[in-house]
């Protein structure tokens, strides 16, 4: 299996304040995941709201792994819908209790009022998530707002 690309999306998640993992995935044993893109956007209508702190993280998922009771499980959508190979990593969205243990990979502050940020990893330096480990997209809004975003990855 190679070059099996897919998206995991979280559309219009009604978020309150506080750090919450919006999208996360755990690689299956012995199957690496190459993360190629991550995007964040907000539909806030109050221009005075300070930006949301957004993070792309590594996560071991010692607790609250994708699919557990404090998450909403998500099915990865393959970019090539004709392929039969199953995506081996497990993904989820909307964590109601934060997973552990998170290590920050990179942060960015994104405006909640019409804010959008789409990071496409350079072809030469994708983020590599080894088998059994995980990635997480974490958002900390300054006020209640809806989040939409995605992770694009490859196995």
């Amino acid at each position, binding site marked *: 299996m190679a070059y099996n690309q897919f998206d995991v999306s979280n559309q*219009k998640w*009604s978020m309150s304040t506080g750090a919450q993992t919006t999208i996360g995935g755990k690689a299956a044993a012995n199957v690496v995941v190459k993360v190629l893109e991550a995007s964040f956007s907000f539909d806030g209508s109050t221009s005075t709201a300070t930006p949301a702190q957004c993070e792309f993280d590594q996560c071991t998922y010692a607790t609250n792994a994708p*699919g557990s009771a404090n998450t*909403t*499980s998500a*099915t990865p959508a393959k970019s090539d819908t004709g392929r039969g190979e199953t*995506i081996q990593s*497990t993904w989820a969205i909307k964590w109601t209790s934060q997973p552990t243990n998170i290590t920050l990979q990179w942060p960015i502050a994104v405006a909640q009022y019409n804010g959008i940020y789409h990071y496409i990893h350079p072809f030469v330096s994708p983020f590599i998530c080894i088998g059994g480990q995980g990635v997480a997209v974490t958002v900390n809004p300054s006020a209640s707002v*809806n989040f939409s975003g995605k992770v694009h990855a490859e196995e």
Partner: protein
Amino acid sequence: MDFDVAGFVARADKVRAHFAVLESVRGSGLHDADTDVHGKLCAPQTQHLPGGMMPGAYPEPRRSEVLVAFLDEKRRVYRFFGPDADRAFNLLDGYLETVKKRPLNQLTGVELKLLQELPELDVANGVLVVWQDIWNDILYALYVSVASAVWLPHEEE
């Protein structure tokens, strides 16, 4: 392998009971009347309705009706137990029947694979075993059958 089916069923019911409590509390995000910052219904079971945050979207089940699977990472399988096993099997069987009626040349890779894999599944002694390497396909079939699943570790934490 012999399993304490009643024990797993009790653990699954405990998770659903937890969600049922959240659904009874305004502001939990799961209550029928919960809304987003723009006043649109936002609970999983209401967001697709007129007045919801995603009208016309695919309906989602109540979280208190979710299927609960147990992940055995050592053996790389998910298992459903008791009523969940029967319900998951019936949903997947129903899904299989709908896929069988469609022309092969219009099926996606996932649907073609499920056409081959689903007939191999069976409930034995109250247990439905799903191989981890097709789990995302099974999840997809459950989603389009308007069901959902969460999973817990095989061993109680």
